[in-house]
């Protein structure tokens, strides 16, 4: 097998051996890399880091609930063509000018190798990943209107992100190299906090992180707070001049961390040693 560029992280994006290994597997085997993990663990940033490290252009495809697989390949603007047909200034016989490549189409058509990020694939319809299987496998598709094939000369590096909670079809999963980004450890979290709040007092940082992880450890929370919530919370604490925090019933600005009413109730319940109901 030919040598390939290995990914070892960038100066601003810290990796772990297992993440590097997963990225390198995807690069070597030319398979899509599926990254899953809780929100706020840097899934999307990974694509940027890979693109920067390998010096490939990054093409993003942000998936929405209405996105169809076809949108990623190309769009044929029939209405524009119809309108143009009324005037003589454009040659409507040339269908090409009404075909617009989608992000995936662009990635295939690119002359150089690119990084294609398919962000939050789970947001679309349940069948969406299945519709992409063939194109991802063969890295080519046909534009029916032109009878022309778009084929990737350099197979793009495909990075797909998905939220941890949603199920994806098995057939799709089989074709991907999988990596699950862990939630940061307290030590890593301390580093992350320091990046966002460089001049934070050590004592407050320690206490806040400790309280944060204890909060996350509570079993009955529906939505556990993530990194961004911790960062916000610390910002609020500092703005209000709070000097120290402890995990008691009166945790200041709890609303920044827990966003669901049931969670606030569950939290109060747990601290007051209230009766536990069936979980």
């Amino acid at each position, binding site marked *: *097998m030919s040598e*390939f560029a290995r990914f070892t992280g960038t100066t601003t994006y810290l990796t772990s*051996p*297992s993440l*590097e*290994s*997963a990225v*390198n*597997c*995807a690069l*070597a*085997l030319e*398979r899509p890399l*599926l990254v*899953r993990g809780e929100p706020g663990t840097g899934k999307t940033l990974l694509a940027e880091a890979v693109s920067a490290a390998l010096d490939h252009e990054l093409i993003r495809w942000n998936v929405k*609930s209405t996105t169809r697989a076809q949108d990623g390949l190309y769009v044929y603007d*029939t*209405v524009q063509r*119809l*309108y143009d*047909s*009324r005037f003589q200034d454009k040659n409507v016989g040339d269908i090409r000018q009404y075909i617009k490549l989608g992000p995936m189409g662009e990635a295939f058509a690119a002359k150089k190798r690119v990084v294609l990020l398919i962000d939050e694939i789970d947001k679309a319809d*349940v069948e969406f990943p299945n519709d992409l299987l063939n194109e991802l496998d063969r890295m080519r598709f046909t534009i029916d209107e032109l009878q022309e094939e778009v084929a990737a000369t350099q197979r793009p590096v495909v990075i797909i992100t998905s939220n*941890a909670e949603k*199920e*994806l*079809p*098995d057939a799709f*999963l*089989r074709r*991907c*190299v*999988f*990596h*699950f980004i*862990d939630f940061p450890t307290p030590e890593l979290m301390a580093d992350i906090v320091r990046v966002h709040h460089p001049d934070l007092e050590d004592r407050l940082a320690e206490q806040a992180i400790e309280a944060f992880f204890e909060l996350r450890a509570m079993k009955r929370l529906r939505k556990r707070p993530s990194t961004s919530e911790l960062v916000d919370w610390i910002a609020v604490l500092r703005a209000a001049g709070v000097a120290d925090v402890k995990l008691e019933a009166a945790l200041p600005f709890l609303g920044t961390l827990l966003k669901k009413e049931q969670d606030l109730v569950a939290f109060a319940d747990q601290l007051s040693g209230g009766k536990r109901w069936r979980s």
Partner: protein
Amino acid sequence: MYLPFLYELRARGVPVGTTEAVQLARALKAGLHEQSLDGFYHVARALLVHREGHLDDFDQAFLKVFRGVEVESKKVQDELLEWLKKAMPIADQLTDEERALLENLDPEELQKLFEKRLEEQKERHDGGNKWIGTAGTSPFGHSGKAARQGIRVGGPGGGRSAIKTADARLYQGYRQDLTLDVRQMQLALRKLRTYVRIGGDEELDLEGTIAATAKNAGELEVVVRPPRRPNTRVILMMDVGGSMDPFALLCSRLFSAAKKSTHFKELRTYYFHNCVYGRVYETERFTDPVRIEDLLHECGPHYKLILVGDALMAPYELMSPGGALSYEGEERMEGISWLMRLRNHFRKSVWLNPEPPRYWEGNTIENIRGVFDMYPLTLEGLGEAMSHLLRTR
């Protein structure tokens, strides 16, 4: 060392097949693991595991196969390359059909393995030893017996750090031992979609445009129409508590599948106990009652009714006017009459029963089957039930 590891994974319900094996072999040939067990751990994990629910199984299998073995990594690689030489031609020779056949075999094989393990588990439990592993990992697992048990594979084994990583079992929390998973149910429920065009004009009606333009002597006339929107309204009523407890997990899964489905115009969910009497409830704890009278008034016959329950109860609970015990006055009507009333109101209704069909004779299920079309709560039954709801009489 390599093949046993794959089989160990399969035994634990991680679906690795030829594809994964060949992928792994290719990765190792490319030297991705950098001749170390650590590297092998990471590479294998990226390629063999496809969902976080299996990470814990992977760690356990890795521990079992590689713990305490002094691995000379060079030897591993040689062995793998050897294996690769043998395996690659075979994999290539397989036609697509054969490959499909291989995939189809999986469930049976898994079933066998699962049964075997269930037996084993009993023995070890009786012996008072701690069962290592989790019998519930198989897709065929049933509730109850196979409790998820975290194991402590004790002692520092002089292992290297990959072993330590695996030993830490960081992914225990992500296990998901599912029987009929939510996604499968969701797909079955999708059959129920029907669409109508309502709302603002947002979509180009190509055929309409051509027709209108032709009529207009070639002068362009663009016709737009509203996009398709879902038009199915569903009422889901679920039996909870008592004899339904063993099926609680299955039912909650059906519930979340229904809730997650975005293709219903409206989904109403209610709970009842044993049988529907005068009212149903909006919560599992039987608060917020809704009178059947009001419900029938609000929901026209075009709603599709899905009842879920084991339909098992004492005959008087179904047949005698006082069966509901807690109600009085106008609601003193037999359970069966209430069911008939529901049945007669809605054009389409179905009863899903988690009890296997072989128990459907000689008890109240038989009576209820006289009222509702009943289907077992399995993937197949669910599919049939959905087709039944769509059929036009």
